């Protein structure tokens, strides 16, 4: 299943809930304000660090660029995707779960 999260972990608990409930080996895509969670040095970095052992974690690159976030400062192991990559993830997975 593809899990999509779109809010910053300091604004909403959706990332925490998603990581608690997503089944192992799932794909997790961070978009919009959730991309802040993928950066190193934040107080929530451990969430993504530990989740990388169970999931493939992706971040939408145009949302990074919009916010001035540098790819070089992404948590190691997080992969970037563009819009085509977003579509590919949606097609590859049999279901999409947007955490709102």
């Amino acid at each position: 299943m593809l899990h999509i999260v779109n809010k910053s972990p300091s604004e909403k608990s959706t990332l925490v809930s998603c990581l608690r409930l997503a089944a192992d080996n799932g794909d997790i895509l961070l978009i919009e304000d959730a991309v802040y969670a993928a950066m190193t040095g934040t107080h929530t970095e451990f969430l993504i660090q530990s989740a990388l052992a169970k999931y493939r974690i992706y971040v939408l690159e145009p949302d990074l660029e919009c916010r001035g976030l540098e790819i070089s400062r992404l948590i190691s192991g997080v992969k970037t995707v563009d819009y085509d990559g977003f579509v590919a993830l949606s097609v590859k997975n049999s279901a999409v779960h947007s955490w709102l």
Partner: protein
Amino acid sequence: MGSSKKRIMYVNRRAPYGTAYALEALDVVLAGAVFEQEVSAVFLDDGVYQLKRGQNPSVLDMKDFSKTFGALPDFDVMHLYVEEESLVQRGMTAEDLIEVPREDDSNAVTLISSTDLSMIMDQQDVVLQF
């Protein structure tokens, strides 16, 4: 009504772009500035992301309103306080932030500790949060 200026503080706690709060707050600050009060803007929690250097929202066909912050000193908003604790929690330093030069070339964007911010906040006549 007294003739003395009121101290007004705008508190920004939201990240830009994901919602309209940041953009709307900036419009409110600019509109309020014409009344010649003593105005400051504060950025804390995810609000510190509003001042991140290198934003390029044109990739999402959105307006780069971080450029508008540069106009604030012209509207007599002389202080853009950034809570240091919020910045540190997000793995950022002053180097990550845009600069907003005042007329004398000093930077209106200044880091401030929670303790000092608490004191300044307490001295305000009006506090508006976005």
